[in-house]
């Protein structure tokens, strides 16, 4: 008789995580900008949508209609969440979706039919700057001051110009004064990634784009919200809000759920994060000589801090902190794939070496922050000795 030996079933770790619910944010994870694990509710919503809404929402059969119901409900949920965080009243039909930041920005730009030129801040993300370049429109980069505030006087006066501005910079945390920019009279495309779910963005935008990862949604969904006054229309077909028809309903449902769950407690979380980052900064400034913080200390995102540690390599610092259990990001050249320092740090004239960006996940505690500062103190002392400083 032919016998087949049956191996023990191999269950990959990711499947175990999916079955048992959720992977909690690892204790030393201080790189929220780089993505967050899904919360229990979000993970559940994602899974249910995968089980029930896998069919094409454009189909007429009941499974297609079931998928469309999930998609439409999530779209309406996002419309009301963005209404709540900005004060601009949106219906579901004013919310669109794109699979990447660059595509979202590109479609957002080309939906403004009347514009002939673009003015963007020098510290937009590279994905957005690339989208501006690809639009083929006349384009100008606007300078920022040493804190990262856009120089309003540099905004061009000519008509049919689209302003492209982050509500807040994701590297240094500085928030822009969107009301003052809106007074210039141009349509504004606002990148509110890392802002929605963290701060009240306000109503001063024509079109708003935001990466769902910023509020704990999964990767791969950029929300495009259109102010009813904007004079914007989708540049390509957008069935169900999906620009380019790339409907990914489970991701959308999870993104909508994450924001819906977050918003009731967002003011409390904002206050807590502000206090934690202020505490972190004052401890570091007191304990480590030759550390310079970048960005506006007042008008900023609550969860982001950026500092450069002189006389230490950014790469060595990030690796040593990782060995000590802490995950942070860096804008130093030695850490970047491109071997170039962050264009944001360069634009504000910051010191680019030994750079560390800390971004707190939701629910971060003072214990984590204090343990991180202790690790940073030890790490910097060690690396400075090694470097001969």
């Amino acid at each position, binding site marked *: 008789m032919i016998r087949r030996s049956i191996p023990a079933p191999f269950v990959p770790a990711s499947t175990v995580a999916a079955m048992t619910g959720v992977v909690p944010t690892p204790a030393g994870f201080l790189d929220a900008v780089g993505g967050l694990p899904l919360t229990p509710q979000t993970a559940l919503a994602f899974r249910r949508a995968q089980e029930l809404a896998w069919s094409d929402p454009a189909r007429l059969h009941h499974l297609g209609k079931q998928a469309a119901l999930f998609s439409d409900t999530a779209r309406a949920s996002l419309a009301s969440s963005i209404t709540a965080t900005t004060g601009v009243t949106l219906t579901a039909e004013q919310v669109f979706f794109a699979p990447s930041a660059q595509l979202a920005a590109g479609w957002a730009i080309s939906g403004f039919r009347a514009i002939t030129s673009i003015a963007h801040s020098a510290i937009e993300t590279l994905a957005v700057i690339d989208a501006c370049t690809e639009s083929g429109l006349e384009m100008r980069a606007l300078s920022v001051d040493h804190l990262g505030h856009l120089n309003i006087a540099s905004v061009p006066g000519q008509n049919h110009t689209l302003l492209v501005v982050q509500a807040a910079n994701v590297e240094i945390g500085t928030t822009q004064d969107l009301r003052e920019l809106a007074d210039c009279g141009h349509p504004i495309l606002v990148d509110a990634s890392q802002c929605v779910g963290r701060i009240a963005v306000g109503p001063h935008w024509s079109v708003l784009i935001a990466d769902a990862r910023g509020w704990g949604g999964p990767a791969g969904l950029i929300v495009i919200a259109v102010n009813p006054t904007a004079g914007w229309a989708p540049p390509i077909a957008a069935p169900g809000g999906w620009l380019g028809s790339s409907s990914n309903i489970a991701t959308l449902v999870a993104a909508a759920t994450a924001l819906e769950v977050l918003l009731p407690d967002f003011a409390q979380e904002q206050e807590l994060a502000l206090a934690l980052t202020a505490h972190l900064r004052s401890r570091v400034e007191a304990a480590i000589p030759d550390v*310079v913080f970048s960005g506006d200390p007042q008008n900023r995102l609550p969860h982001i801090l950026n500092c450069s540690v*002189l*006389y*230490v*390599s*950014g790469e060595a610092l990030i690796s040593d902190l990782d060995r000590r259990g802490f995950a942070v990001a860096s804008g*130093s*050249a*030695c850490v970047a794939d491109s*071997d*170039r*320092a962050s264009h944001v*740090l*360069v634009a504000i*004239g*910051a*010191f*680019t*070496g*030994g750079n560390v960006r800390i971004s707190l996940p939701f629910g971060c505690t003072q214990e984590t922050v204090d343990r991180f500062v202790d690790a940073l103190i030890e790490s910097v002392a060690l690396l400075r000795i090694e*470097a*001969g*400083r």
Partner: protein
Amino acid sequence: MNVDFWLDERGRRCPIPVIALARSQSQWLKDEQSPTQVVGVLADDPAAQYDIPAWCRLKGAEFLGETTPPDEGEGTGYLVRFSS
């Protein structure tokens, strides 16, 4: 431009060229011999073009600009003046 001395930091990566510059400032402060001193840093690390001027702003030194290395070799010369 009369350069008092050159620090040849070519082939060394961040943070070494800036550490060398900081050391020469400490030495100049300790010596108390001349009221001003111009130091040229030769570096080919791409971070130097941002970090030497930024370091000068932070540390009260004056960044005078970039120049070609006196040996006409690789890299860039960054001129810095210390003054009391």
